């Protein structure tokens, strides 16, 4: 059963994360167009608002899932030799986990400092 639903789960995860990423990005875009350039104080205050801080962390988590499924699809489609494929998949996972956790840490530290 789980073997058969595996592809469907990834497909669904890709779509659900896409909807969240798109909505968040459109909000950011509208905010930046209306607001213009930020000073540090405005930027820090905006990203440490509790709702914005949590929504941004959600964005990073959704992005990690979305980018993993997408990069996995691309690698499996174009890279056939098994060794190279596993190597690239591992690098992708490392880069994604590294960047994502780093960004989450920055958001969390900024929120802690703001309290």
């Amino acid at each position, binding site marked *: 059963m789980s073997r058969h639903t595996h592809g469907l789960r990834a497909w669904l995860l890709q*779509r659900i994360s*896409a*909807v969240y990423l*798109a909505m968040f*990005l459109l909000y950011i875009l509208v905010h930046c167009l209306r607001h213009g350039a930020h000073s*540090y*104080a405005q*930027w*820090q205050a905006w*990203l440490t608002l509790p709702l914005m801080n949590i929504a941004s962390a959600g964005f990073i988590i959704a*992005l990690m899932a979305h*980018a993993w499924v*997408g*990069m996995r699809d*691309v690698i499996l489609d174009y890279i056939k030799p098994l060794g190279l494929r596993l190597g690239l998949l591992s690098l*992708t996972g490392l*880069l*994604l986990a*590294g*960047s*994502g956790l*780093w*960004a989450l*840490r*920055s*958001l969390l*530290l*900024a929120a802690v400092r703001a309290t």
Partner: protein
Amino acid sequence: MTDPQNAPVFLNLFRIRFPAGAVASIAHRISGVMLFLSLPFLAWLLDLSLQGPDGYARAVELLQPVWVRLGSALIVWSLLHHLIAGIRFLLIDIHIGVSLPVARISAWAASMTALLLALLYAWWLL
């Protein structure tokens, strides 16, 4: 029937037709990979910008050189294309705009909108 073993190989890229849907689709992949590759840099910028007034000033400073601005225009195109073409794919998933004439027009419109907005951004930036 031609023997498949001896069938002529036709791989002149200038003579293979790429319909709008194929262009939007391959550009969706290319932009996705470029966005993925930009993530460490973006995480670094976010971290720097939240470290304090000095870090924020340094992050702004890092974005000033012309080659970084050109790179950012490429990332902005990737984001716009990935977002707009992605919304088109989501709509097709729920059976909106599936018919070939509509899908061709929307593919063309999505690619062109992303390109135009990215050019507008580059023009504003430089």
